[in-house]
């Protein structure tokens, strides 16, 4: 094994060295331009994709050179167990990735930590480990692609896709990556056998192989649906791409201006003031409430879900939020030297949630900024170098954004809209009590937009719930208009349901294609992930027609799967399991059966009997 490892290392060492040097130079270049420790998810995905492709290419090349029949026989016909041979090859591949991917990255992290005043804490320190796991996943997926039966050897990529879509963050993301890595390793070891392309033998090996294969089939089905949607778009009848969207639908509502939407929302109003409100809306500016926080950051996350840096041009300082300290750490813009720490108030108290700069408000001094963290809007006072609370919503709510409106401040949380007087907003000792509170009549994940119109006596507030109406997870689209009067009383004005622009079977494609695979996908994506408070939707029950379609498909899969299984080379329990699996999982299991379990080899002449040697 050691010799194989050495030989492989020597075979790739120059390439590895070149890759490592190139990698280091690229990282150093970008690290001069930006703080690589503070990047959003898409930058992390880009780097992850590069590392995954690196691993895939290495796996493909390494196993590709050994997979040729002569080479393979030569490799395995040694006085070494195949597992030890595999360990030698994989060990060499892993060390190559360690040298080419991890070491440069670790060097950059170390440079960040000891050579710059930038923040390096656990979430940055584990980046090399994440890179290694992603690269290994790619490597295993590449290796599996050449060792397994070509009909399903690409199924390893499913586990890479899992890493890409998993919602887990921070160390939990490492756990997901490690699970994917172990699964792929198991798949490689199952495929690493003298008879390449042979179907898995044990039940466990079959399960380890079948699950990714079925998920891959499921994803291909969804991809086919996407291709169909592309054709729909080309045809010009897709609701999102029609020049005039369907009347009364949610696409039309989303394309309206705020004023048009508010007027449409008032169409069914029966209040005696409705006519006056319509007149005023026609004349007024309709304010769409800003949402500076689009998603909630999680402490210790690998990427920055939301911006966590801001500059103070007055004091020439740059502030970055530290997940470790839960405070902002300052550096000088001119000299890059540490410029102190910013918590809340004079006591420099730690923030109770990840803090994100949220722009400026009218009336604040030059250099000042606002910060949103948890349920509170803070003001950074440049002159005093302090952070003080300005607006708070009740504990348990997330403050998402603020919009100055006519001398007041409208505040959007995940559950309510508040209006706060502007008078003592920026110089009060404590945050002012909001003058109005309007509960949001729906779930935050469904809310597409919130609009507000000032009246002489209060406000009209319109909520449009269409955000996920095109999927099976979103509430049926609707719009609600409320009136909050000057005394703070909230009165419903009108609610009207919007038409569904997308057919039911389109919205439920992911479900009826395979309810079980859909559930597995959801569970896998959410494994170890924190609950997203902004993602909550009012999920409607699955329509009977969709359930019926899924049942028909499952039944068909069961029948066809049973028929196929009995004609495949496998044991009776395996046939029964596959048949049952086809009934439960549906089409993905049926296709998986066709791909994984080989045909029974036909007997040329079943009348020939064994004849004793003579």
């Amino acid at each position, binding site marked *: 094994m050691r010799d194989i490892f050495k030989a492989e290392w020597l075979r790739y060492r120059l390439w590895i060295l070149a890759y490592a040097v190139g990698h280091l130079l690229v990282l150093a270049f970008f690290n001069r331009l930006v703080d690589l420790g503070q990047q959003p998810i898409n930058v992390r995905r880009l780097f992850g994709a590069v590392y995954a492709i690196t691993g895939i290419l290495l796996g493909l090349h390494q196993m590709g050179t050994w997979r040729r029949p002569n080479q393979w026989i030569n490799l395995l016909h040694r006085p070494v167990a195949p597992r030890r041979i595999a360990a030698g090859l994989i060990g060499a591949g892993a060390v190559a990735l360690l040298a080419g991917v991890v070491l440069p990255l670790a060097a950059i992290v170390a440079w960040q930590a000891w050579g710059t005043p930038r923040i390096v804490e656990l979430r940055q320190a584990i980046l090399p480990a994440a890179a290694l796991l992603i690269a290994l996943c790619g490597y295993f997926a590449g290796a599996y692609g050449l060792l397994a039966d070509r009909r399903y050897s690409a199924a390893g990529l499913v586990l890479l896709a899992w890493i890409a879509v998993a919602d887990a963050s921070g160390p939990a993301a490492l756990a997901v990556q490690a699970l994917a890595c172990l699964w792929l390793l198991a798949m490689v070891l199952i495929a690493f056998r003298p008879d390449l392309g042979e179907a898995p033998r044990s039940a466990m090996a079959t399960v380890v192989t079948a699950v990714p294969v079925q998920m891959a089939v499921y994803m291909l089905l969804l991809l086919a649906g996407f291709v169909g949607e592309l054709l729909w778009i080309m045809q010009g009848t897709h609701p999102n791409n029609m020049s005039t969207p369907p009347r009364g639908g949610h696409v039309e509502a989303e394309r309206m201006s705020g004023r048009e939407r508010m007027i449409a929302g008032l169409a069914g109003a029966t209040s005696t003031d409705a006519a006056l409100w319509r007149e005023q809306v026609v*004349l007024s500016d309709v304010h769409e409430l800003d949402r500076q926080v689009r998603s909630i950051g999680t402490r210790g996350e690998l990427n920055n879900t939301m911006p966590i840096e801001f500059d103070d041009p007055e004091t020439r300082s740059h502030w970055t939020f530290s997940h470790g300290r839960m405070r902002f750490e300052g550096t000088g813009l001119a000299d890059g030297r540490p410029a102190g720490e910013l918590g809340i108030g004079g006591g420099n108290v730690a923030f109770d949630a990840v803090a994100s700069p949220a722009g400026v408000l009218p009336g604040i001094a030059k250099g000042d900024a606002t910060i949103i963290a948890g349920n509170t809007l803070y003001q950074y006072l440049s002159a005093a170098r302090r952070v003080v609370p300005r607006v708070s919503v009740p504990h348990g709510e997330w403050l998402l954004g603020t919009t100055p409106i006519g*001398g007041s401040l409208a505040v959007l949380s995940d559950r309510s809209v508040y209006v706060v007087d502007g008078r003592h907003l920026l110089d009060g000792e404590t945050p002012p009590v909001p003058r109005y509170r309007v509960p949001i009549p729906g779930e935050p994940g469904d809310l597409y937009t919130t609009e507000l119109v000032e009246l002489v006596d209060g406000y009209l507030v319109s909520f449009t719930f269409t955000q996920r109406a095109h999927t099976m997870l979103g509430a049926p689209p609707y719009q609600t208009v409320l009136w909050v009067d000057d005394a703070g009383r909230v009165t419903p004005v009108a609610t009207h349901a919007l038409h569904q622009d997308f057919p039911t079977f389109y919205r439920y494609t992911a479900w009826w294609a395979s309810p079980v695979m859909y559930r597995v996908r959801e569970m896998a994506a959410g494994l170890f992930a924190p609950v997203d408070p902004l993602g909550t939707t009012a999920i409607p029950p699955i329509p009977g027609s969709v359930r019926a379609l899924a049942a028909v498909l499952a039944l068909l899969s069961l029948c066809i799967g049973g028929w196929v299984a009995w004609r495949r080379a496998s044991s009776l329990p395996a046939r029964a399991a596959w048949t049952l699996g086809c009934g439960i999982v549906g089409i993905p299991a049926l296709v998986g059966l066709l791909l994984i379990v080989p045909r029974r080899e036909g007997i040329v002449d079943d009348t020939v009997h064994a004849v004793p040697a003579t």
Partner: protein
Amino acid sequence: MTTFRVWLGALGALVLAIPAFATDEAFELALRAERERPWAARFERDAFLVRPAIADVTMSPDGKRFAFIRGVDDRRGLWLAAIDGTERQVLASTDATGIAWTRDGRWLLVVSARRLFAVAAAGQGGSRLLAELGGAEERAFMDADPARDAAAIVRERSLEAAGSTRSWRLVRIDNEGRRELLAETPDRIGGYALDGNGRLAFLQVMHDDRMVTWRLDADGARHEALHCEEMHRCGLWPRLDGEGRPWFASDIGGSLRRLQRLERDGTLSDMLADPRGEADLADLVADPSSGLPMLGVFRGTVAINRGIDRTTQAHIDAIERHYRGRAVTLQPGRSHWLVVERGGALQGARYHLYDPVGGHFSDILDDMPRRARDGGMAQWLPEPAMARQLPFSWTASDGMRLHGFVRVPPGLDPAGVPLVAMIHGGPWGQVAPEEFGTGYAQFLVNRGYAVFEPNFRGSTGFGRDYMLAAKGDFGNGRVQQDIVEGTQALLAAGVGDESRVGIVGASFGGYSTLLGLTWQSELFHVGVALVPPADFAWDLTWITRTREAQVLSAVLPFERWMSLVALDLGDRERMGSLHMQSPLANAARMNRPLTILAGGDDQRVALRGVLGYVARLTLLGKDVTLLVDPVAGHQNERAVAREAGMYLMAEALRGPFDGVAETPPDPTLREYLMDNLRVTGGHVASAAHGITTASSATPPALAKDGR
């Protein structure tokens, strides 16, 4: 006995009425003179909007040089000139809003919204930034140090952790940037007085709702020397006299503000007051040598300067004789005085030098004005073609004598022209004498209207009693009655055709316009309201919820200020009464053509209130036109916006009064109107229609057809 009393009363009334009769006679003579003047040519709108190329002219203490800003917009430069006419540019570009000379005359303190610079003015080096202004500390330039040679006095605040005020500081900053803390106090500093050594001897702060003046001992101990409250005024002059006595611009012990000196025994001596007994002391000018007040300025129905002593008065007399009928602003230097000349018919200002030794006058800085839109060279409107500002006083139905001004078109019979009442804002504001103004009044006069600008009770400049006489009756009450009675008195005096009377105004003037069309529609046949609150009480309450209340509370808490002018916002009865009389609550009564211009970023008048009012009117099918400039605040200085105001005003008045059509808008103005007209009503709709057809464009995005 009864008969005797009647006759005595009648005699007394006759004696009191004699000045009024004299005024009436003078007014008739003035009207006759206006009618006999040649008829004026018509000028285009942009001629009324030209901007001066010279601003902030400031005389050096020695009277041998003067500094000024030349240019407009981003081409403004700081210049320095000697009295022999030689000029040199000191700064090629500046955003200065003010200039002051240091006491030694070697430095210019250049003040902008953000910074205070010391600029070397005597050929020496060392120009530097002295302080950042504004910001969280609200640092503000107060004066050039009246006791030290080269220093400035600034006020600033220190902050608590939450950003509120911890203390106020008075700081001296010398020309090398060295700071000296003169005082620090929890209360907002309103004034100060330095002794001859530059020591802070008196400090004036706003404590609760009282302006308190402390005398400061050498060891820092404070003793209350004077306080004023209940809307009394007592501005502290920044320099003590030779005997260590402070001077005040104060109305303590009376109604009119005058120059008073605090004697050692604590009594106040009157030093200078309006000789006509009519107007407040509007301004004081310092002696360049002693730093003490040298002359006072009074702006009642006429503009007067008054010297502190006979010598000064002799010079003032000579100057006012030379520029008779003008409002002159004087800046004495030791060798020469700067004379700034303004007049009711004189567009812009003219600058002159006065030699107090020889009594000679010379003209300086005769730069042509600039066009408002593009800054190109323009011409001043010819004074002979402009209307003069005629003082007009009348007696209200409750016996109070009120003042105002009238402009009538030259060469026309004033009784036959339409009359427009132009109401000033505030309401705590004033129409001053011999002021050309914003150009709106002269523009309307040039279009053939007589323009009446009343200083109704509540106006400033005529004493505390005059201002407080409104007693908060700002609905369809006493103040509105003043305006109506003034208009009627003017009609009775032979100005205006009573069947063609309109009303226009901005801010409170706009509110009065809405009131006039709602409650006095038999008198006012058309109205144009700029940034009008449709419900005064509602708007005041709205302000209390906004940051503007903090801005307005700079001296006195806003609610306290309002209660002192009889507008207690917590008084439900008073507020309810104002609301019941408001145009908003009585929209159905408004039956005259109305044009409203509003600002989308107005912090004084809530746009929502304006829109709510217009929505009610449109729902009721009234003839209303609405323009909203989304980026404009309570004031709109943009040239195109001001021209739009003139255009819409002229068009709005033209319809009911059968006037001459206004020159059609050029493409820039047309685009502005198309973008911002939200409702077009009546005859303004036809003008708007002309706009759209002329440009072949789609109608204004939001404009609703007139109903």
